[in-house]
């Protein structure tokens, strides 16, 4: 199974056609897939809170929007999540690369990894952790859940899920 295609297919099948991204090595394949297809509008943003602003506007314009980002950026989005996305009750799937988990080669990534679930829990954001490749099967249901409850929902995808880092396995 091509995980990158599965994410994009599920987005498209759930009507999510406005996606903003800030890159991460682990997410490169998904971003490439979004760029390739014409049923999803991909707009890169320079910072994750900016991206959430784009998603908020698209939502109010009648689109289903999503953000793809790295967990280290969670810190810069706290205010936006609390006072924009949650305060105005906006649905927002957040597909997040969970850096700093098992297999991580860069020590500094662990410093935000240890806060990731704590921050999400503090914000009462429903959080799903994809650790095995087969976990991706739940993505479709998570998208449906997000647009049912009008909340930001986090999907953390760790290195084991992605098949390790370069040289350690198949990135797909």
């Amino acid at each position, binding site marked *: 199974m091509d995980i990158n295609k599965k994410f994009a297919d599920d987005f498209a099948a759930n009507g999510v056609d*406005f996606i903003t991204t800030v890159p991460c090595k682990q997410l490169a394949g998904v971003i490439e897939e979004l760029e390739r297809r014409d049923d999803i509008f991909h707009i890169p943003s320079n910072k994750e809170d900016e991206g*959430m602003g*784009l*998603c*908020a*506007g698209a939502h109010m314009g009648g689109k289903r929007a999503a953000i793809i980002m790295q967990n280290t950026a969670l810190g810069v989005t706290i205010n936006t999540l609390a*006072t924009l996305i949650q305060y*105005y009750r906006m649905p927002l799937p957040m597909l997040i690369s969970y850096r700093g988990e098992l297999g991580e080669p860069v020590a500094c990534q662990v410093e935000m990894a240890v806060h990731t679930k704590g921050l999400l829990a503090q914000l009462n954001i429903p959080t799903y952790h994809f650790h095995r490749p087969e976990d991706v099967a739940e993505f479709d249901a998570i998208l449906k859940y997000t647009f049912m409850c009008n909340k930001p929902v986090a999907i953390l995808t760790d290195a084991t899920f992605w098949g390790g880092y370069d040289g350690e396995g198949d990135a797909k």
Partner: protein
Amino acid sequence: MIRSEVLKEIAPIIRDELIVCNIGIPSQELHAIDDQPTNFYMLGTMGLASSIGLGLALAQDKNVIAIDGDGSVLTNLGTLPTIANNAAGNFTLLIVDNGSYGSTGDQPTYAGMKTSLSKVAEACGCENVVECRAEDTGEVLEAALAGDEMTIIVCKCESGNAKMPVITMDPVVIKDRFMKAVQA
């Protein structure tokens, strides 16, 4: 002219357009001057008016005007390259540049010193940037709305705030009413 005087002057022009209005006193002023269902008031999240406005403009066909401030644009400077590279003809970014952080006590911003936001916008790739005097804002805005090119307006005005009440409308009500106006 201060911001509230600019808003009073452009109120009849923007009345039926979709407005995303900056957090704090700008939203309070617009709300008091001419509250409309087509106004989206930001109650939090400094800096994102231009991003929300762009997202909205890209998602549907009606004109969108984001009323932003120099301090807020400086907070989210990364917005200008995104706007430039995803130009939406129905989008106008009106930066009310009074050289100060109005909502927090009129502390000076760098835009009131050496930094030119119109030049920054141009350097970011925005192709239609107009810097104008506060007195000319209405005229420049009307021209922007009449055209089909995305326009960034930097309105140079004086620092100062009108004393207006805090917006007590529930955020979900603001959004619901706004989304109905978008769809109307």
